């Protein structure tokens, strides 16, 4: 009973934080891309568009839910649920921290630590494609059909490279549990270089990581691999016929996919919740100092603000940042907060990379994309796997 209750509490916390993150990830993306393109982005709803996600959600919910007459009704309605369901599940396997004791209960900072965690994540990721494929098929629209066909072919090609890229950290960690993979990467070389897989001696997994990231772009259908959507070619691709919350389902699935794949990348290659440098060098104070710095910048700009409302909002957020810095400065809370902080930082960098690339690169052509996957990524991943397995065999 205790376990049951605990799991529900953890699931509720993770679901709440995850869904909020998804909503604000969309705002972040719009803001970052807007600044790349020299425009302010969302600006009207709340200070600097801060309440925009809320407005978007309200808009999407209150929109008329159109089911076109020519669709295959069952699958048309099922597809977005499929997509969003399988996009949300993998987060429960991601470890945000080690075992902690809270209110006398010892638990992992993770919803569940399956011994086959990684296989589970890959399996669910592969099932997720059914949402897109079914959606495109059931829409009975030629553009959607083309989009979902592209998507299926793309997934098959890139899943291969992705899986082989993932296999190398597994060889090194010798386990499938995501928690244990993270723990295998704790510690430091020479007292400062973290033992993450990306820095693994004597053969750093840097190629594996790059292949993983490239394949991850393809997996999540993001530029430069956004073939299935390609609004300039296929209008909306598989979601052309969708509106209202069903469209929001696909939309959410896309962002959930990004968060998940970035989290997996963090766990496999970037050492999960392990800090960037050892606590002896003061890594425990990094978050407090970061937020302190953020607050200082905000106060500095508040002094020079030209618009009256900036004179209110900037110090307000400065105070919030100060408060967060104060929380991070309490040593008692470190076991709970620091792992989460490092995890979020690393995953955040990866997510930022996703957004940055979207603002920069054009789209591949379909055949080039397939050639790239099969003739370039796949052989490199394979060679890397062979070298790594050879080294692992020799060392052990």
């Amino acid at each position, binding site marked *: 009973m205790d376990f049951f209750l605990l799991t529900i509490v953890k699931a509720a916390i993770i679901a709440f934080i995850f869904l909020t993150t998804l909503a604000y990830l969309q705002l972040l993306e719009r803001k970052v*891309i807007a600044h*790349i*393109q*020299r*425009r302010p982005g969302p600006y009207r709803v709340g200070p600097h568009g801060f309440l925009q996600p809320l407005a978007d959600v309200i808009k999407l919910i209150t929109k008329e839910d159109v089911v076109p007459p020519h669709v295959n009704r069952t699958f048309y309605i099922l597809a977005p649920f499929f997509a969003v369901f399988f996009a949300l599940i993998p987060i429960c396997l991601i470890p945000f921290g080690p075992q902690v004791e809270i209110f006398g209960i010892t638990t992992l900072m993770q919803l569940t630590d399956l011994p086959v965690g990684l296989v589970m994540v890959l399996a669910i990721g592969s099932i997720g494609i059914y949402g897109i494929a079914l959606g495109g098929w059931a829409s009975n629209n*030629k*553009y959607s059909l*083309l989009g979902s066909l*592209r998507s299926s072919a793309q997934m098959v090609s890139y899943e291969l490279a992705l899986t082989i890229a993932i296999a190398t950290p597994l060889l090194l960690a010798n386990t499938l549990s995501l928690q244990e993979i993270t723990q295998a990467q704790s510690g430091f070389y020479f007292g400062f270089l973290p033992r993450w897989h990306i820095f693994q001696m004597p053969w750093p997994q840097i190629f594996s990581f790059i292949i993983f990231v490239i394949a991850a772009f393809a997996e999540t259908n993001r*530029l*430069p691999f*956004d073939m299935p959507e*390609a*609004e*300039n*070619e*296929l*209008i909306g691709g598989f979601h052309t016929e969708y509106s209202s919350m069903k469209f929001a389902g696909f939309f959410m699935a896309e962002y959930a996919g990004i968060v998940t794949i970035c989290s997996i990348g963090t766990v496999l290659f970037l050492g999960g919740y392990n800090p960037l440098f050892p606590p002896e060098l003061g890594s425990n104070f990094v978050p407090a100092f970061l937020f302190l710095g953020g607050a200082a910048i905000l106060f500095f700009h508040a002094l020079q603000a030209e618009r009256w409302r900036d004179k209110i909002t900037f110090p307000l957020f400065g105070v919030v940042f100060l408060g967060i810095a104060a929380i991070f400065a309490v040593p008692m809370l470190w076991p709970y907060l620091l792992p989460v902080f490092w995890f979020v930082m690393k995953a955040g960098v990866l997510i930022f990379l996703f957004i940055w690339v*979207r*603002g*920069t*690169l*054009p*789209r*591949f*052509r*379909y*055949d*080039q994309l397939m050639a790239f996957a099969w003739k370039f990524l796949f052989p490199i991943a394979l060679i890397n796997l062979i070298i790594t397995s050879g080294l692992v065999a020799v060392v052990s």
Partner: protein
Amino acid sequence: MSEVPTLEAPVVADLRQVLEAPPETRPRTMVLNMGPQHPSTHGVLRIVLELDGEHVVHARPDIGFLHTGIEKQCENLTYQQAVTLTDRVDYLANMSNNLCYVLAVEKLLQLEVPPRAEWMRVMLVELTRLNSHLVWLGTHAMDVGAMTMFFYCMREREDLLRIFEMFSGQRMMTSYIRIGGLALDAPRGWEQAVGRFMQTFPSRVDEYEDLLKKNPIWMNRIIGVGELDVAELVDLGVTGPMLRAAGIKTDARKDAPYSGYEKFDFEVPTFTENDVYARYRVRIEEMRESIKIINQARAGMPGGAFQADAPKVVLPEREKMKTQMEALIYHFKIVTEGFRVPAGEVYQVIESPRGELGYYVVSDGTSKPLRVHMRTPSFGNLQALARLIQGKLIADVIAILGSMDFVLGDVDR
């Protein structure tokens, strides 16, 4: 010349026949109706694509969704009024259309415009070329997926539109070039406005090149795509940058100079690759040449009158109209009736940003044209579409469409 798909060509057999046929003889192709509402057809072009997988087996462009009847409307307006319609033909290169029509009518009238008007026209038409090429570059890059490029190009275009607004009071439908000269004298501070723009713009063109040419994805998408035999291109009536990208050095500014273009020093960029990339490079180089022309025009801008000394055609000054009897009579005649143009016909060609733009004006001696026909470059260029995209992937179709740079208003008139 090899087979060009015609409108009558059957795309699929009757649906019933298809369904009753045994499965192995059923066609493998799918008909995709691309447009008229599609984000990448640049307006309301409809292309009926017959697809085998993602490969285009057969393409059939269908135009006419933006038919405005401008050619016919011109017959009901006086010569001067019709200038306002020419703006709306090619709404991205309005000044070029103004100029071509105005030159044609001036030829009929045998009217000489003062040098200041000529040079100002050249400068504005070249600015229009920049404007048009910027829109082309932005939308072309966006079609290929580089979204950011579009916003960068629009930023520069905004400056250009401000300059146009400064001159004419309008951002797009300027109607600034009039029969007999210009609508108004250049506004105060135009040198600074154009100068400021010209100071930053060359580096911006380099910036675009950096962003695109150093990107392997972009290069792979456009190199070797959309090639067609040069003879066929000529036969189909393709002109302008598309033909220059195929290695034919044709430019009305050099071949048949008008409005004093012979006094300017510039090159006609040509490339021989004849693909989307060559078209891209031609237009980028054209922007650089336009910059040269604009700078020469700015430096050597003559003073003096901006309208011809032709009281029967050009409205008198306000002050004269109020004080002099003759001026008042001319004013009354021009405003109520318009001016009469000697009977005759004339065909005037200029180089618009899209290619060879020709206006055929027929006069029967009255104050309204008997016929105004436009030989628009977009229409000619679009003829090559079906041949260019045959056998290509859908993604290539988009890249090729972008490289052709047509304006549907220009196609349909």
